[in-house]
């Protein structure tokens, strides 16, 4: 209860601060009055998510529409939002995603939130940019099963898209490139700033509770920050799943998706290597890991301790870490002009 109250208050303070920033009125004075001071996070391995991102608002609106439009799938039944539901943490809460004709995909859908902060896209990092990433699910026969010429033709027949693309992309109109660009522009806005932890990093001492603070210290001391660090608390490197103990040997039934980055590079050292997932929205994106095998955050922490850290930890420590992880989730605010 206390946590919730403090957390909500902190968020409110920062919302007011943002408002002041937007208004550019008495910003420094306002910050002083609110007791906000910068920076206190420069030495921490985790950095706060920026509060704003520079985008083209018209493209964002168009990309948002495309993101939610089932027109992009072969049978007009699946949209990007089908697997990346913004209301449920930016994923679909399933171990693996379901595409057209009810087909199940081979891998767990990662959250789309903060994906623009990742250094690569997909679990195996096969796309370097958000725009490149768009090609993947749209053309995957299990996911959306579409092909670009069909999509472009369908969009041309739609009055809204025909008009909007002509307005926003007067030179190119509707094309693979412009559809990708618009969706990527929208996805850039899917950030979740002002999480309690970020507020704490920025100096709001009571933005997170004691357990979360302790959890953060444990998170660092147990070496979790070796991989989960940076703004996105992950998403900036590849790591083998099962560094100190073999996860796949224990789990069994190894699939092609389990080979991870090896599928892209063919390098044996990349076997079972995946992009380290962001923990930013982990509180809302169960089940976890590429195979969706961990149903809860606590289970995921257990797996990490066993296979990545190669050590045991008291339950309390793990619980504290789970609480800390929950404090990483911020709020998404739809970008408008």
């Amino acid at each position, binding site marked *: 209860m206390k946590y919730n109250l403090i957390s909500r208050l902190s968020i409110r303070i920062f919302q007011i601060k943002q408002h002041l920033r937007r208004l550019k009125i008495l910003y420094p004075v306002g910050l002083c009055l609110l007791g906000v001071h910068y920076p206190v996070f420069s*030495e*921490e*391995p*985790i*950095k706060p998510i920026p509060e704003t991102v520079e985008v083209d608002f018209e493209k964002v609106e168009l990309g948002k529409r495309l993101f939610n439009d089932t027109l992009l799938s072969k049978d007009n039944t699946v949209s990007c939002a089908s697997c990346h539901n913004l209301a449920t943490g930016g994923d679909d809460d399933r171990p693996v995603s379901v595409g057209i004709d009810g087909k199940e995909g081979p891998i767990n859908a990662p959250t789309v939130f903060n994906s623009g902060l990742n*250094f690569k896209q997909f679990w195996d990092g096969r796309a*370097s*940019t958000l725009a490149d990433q768009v090609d993947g699910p749209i053309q995957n026969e299990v996911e959306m099963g579409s092909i670009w010429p069909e999509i472009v033709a369908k969009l041309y027949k739609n009055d809204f898209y025909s008009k909007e693309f002509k307005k926003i992309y007067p030179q190119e109109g509707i094309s693979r490139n412009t559809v990708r660009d618009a969706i990527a522009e929208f996805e850039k806005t899917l950030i979740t700033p002002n999480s309690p932890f970020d507020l704490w990093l920025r100096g709001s001492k009571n933005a997170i509770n004691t357990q979360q603070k302790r959890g953060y210290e444990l998170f*660092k*001391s*147990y*070496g979790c*920050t*070796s*991989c989960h*660090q*940076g*703004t*996105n608390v992950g998403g*900036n*490197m*590849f*790591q*083998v799943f099962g*560094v*100190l*103990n073999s996860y796949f040997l224990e789990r069994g039934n190894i699939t092609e998706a389990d080979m991870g980055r090896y599928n892209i590079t063919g390098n044996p*050292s990349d076997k079972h*290597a995946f992009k380290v997932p962001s923990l930013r929205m982990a509180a809302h994106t169960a089940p976890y890991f590429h195979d969706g095998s961990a149903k809860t955050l606590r289970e995921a922490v257990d797996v990490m301790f066993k296979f990545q*850290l*190669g*050590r*045991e930890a008291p339950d309390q420590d793990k619980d504290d870490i789970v609480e800390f992880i929950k404090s990483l989730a911020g709020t998404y605010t739809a970008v408008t002009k």
Partner: protein
Amino acid sequence: MNNTTQLNKGILLIALLFAGAAILLFMQSANKSAGVYSEGASTIRKIQTLDANWSVEAMKVRTNPLADFDLLSAFAPEVGTLKEKLSGLLAVEDELSENLGDDINAYISNLNAKEEQLERFKSGYAIIRNSERYLPLAANNIVQLSQNAKQYEIADEVSGLSNEMREYMAAPSESHRARLRLLLTDFSERSIHFDSALSDGVSNFVSHGNVLLDESISTEKLFREATSDKTREEAEILVRALSSTGAVADKEKQNYLYGALGALLASIIAGIAMIIKRKSADPSSDLKRDGDFEDGDNLFVDHDEVGAEVGDTIATDKSVIENVDIVDSVTHYCSSTKTSDVSNQIFAGLISDDLMEIVRKIEAEKERDADLSGYAVDAALSDKTEDSYQHISRIAKKLSSYATNAVEENKEWVNINDVIREVATPESQHNGATVRVKFGDIPHIIASPTELKCLFKNLVHNAVSSVRSDEEQELVVEIETQTLEGQIAVTITDNGAGVDSEKRKNITKLFKTDGNTPLDFSLPSSNYLAKRYGGKLLLNSIPNKGTAVRVLLPENSELAGVAV
């Protein structure tokens, strides 16, 4: 083909060659873009700077166990964008030397390798910094557990191993790794006899120790390779090479441009030379074709209307007799030159025309004589004159009748351009002259094609038969048809020796000669034919420059072909 023609064609060829060379050189200069090289060098410089910062960031990360990898990861896309730009420049510049192209490709390849090395370094280093951080804690845990169990030798051993691991991590080596591997394996094997807590502790310690042994050397190697100066040195060499190549390309571009300008200049000079040469051979240069015949133009102010004075000087009895005598020679001329019947008819018309003028003058004389009836006259002479008059009058009428009837019968729609083409073609082979024809858009007229052929053949033949003013000079005859103020104008110019004004007066008159040149009926007969069609013939000539003759015929076919 004479020497002058060959010379002109040679000059033309040279001018065209130079013009072609100028175009080729200019295109070459356009291909030589130093901008591509400088842009390439600039791009590599930017990559070089990023590359250096990338290495610095890697070093920072390596020295700070809590450092995040955001910045280290952010370099790759930035460098990637520049690499794409560099590749794009390579694709554009096909003149790039093979070696330089290979070097740039190798550089890009090494940057890719660096990115991969740093990615692998991040993964390896994350593991290392985790285990390196944990290993002392694991050792302490074992020490505590072993001390609690009074197994001090285990505590000593693990402390020793922990220290040795620290030493190894400070300076990893293969031999040290092999030794530590053996020690850890031995320690692990012996730990199965320890109590479970201690055994688990040792297991953790050994696991992390082995991770460090597995990862440290390879990760260190990745780090050294990724942060080495290799790519930056390559960049330095490439920048120098590109700058140097750019300078050469710049110079080459300049040279090509100079070459193009030179060739263009040479082409222009050759063109001017050709124009000057043609001008000296071209009658149109001095004998202005259109303007020459305009009233008030100084160059043609004294032009002659051929035949305007015909008969003026022969309106005496004596002259009449002489002329009558000559009728035979005219007839002879026609037959001897084997001209066609039409030609004969033309001559008949020409002579009858002249004779009828004489008849009219004699009639006027007779009227005057009648007024002087009170005066004594030589009766014998008077009878002879009357006989001559009657004789001339009969011949004139017969000739006129012969000529007029023939012409009326042969009229049809005629395109004068076709006539000129037919006439000029055989004449172009004559006297080594070059005949150029410029056809204008002129209307058809109703006329006798044969008459028109005779009209223009005479004039063209005269032109191509012109005496050259200079032995070396190319004789050029130009024929142009056009419409001028409602009339069809056919202008024939030559660059022959021309005639002076005195001679010009004579050649325009029937049966007149300067005493040196034989009688020539061509100009009077052409004039006669022109008049027959309601037109006229104009003449201009400048000594040593040439002669221009223009035939003007009414454009309106209804008016054409009026009988003389």
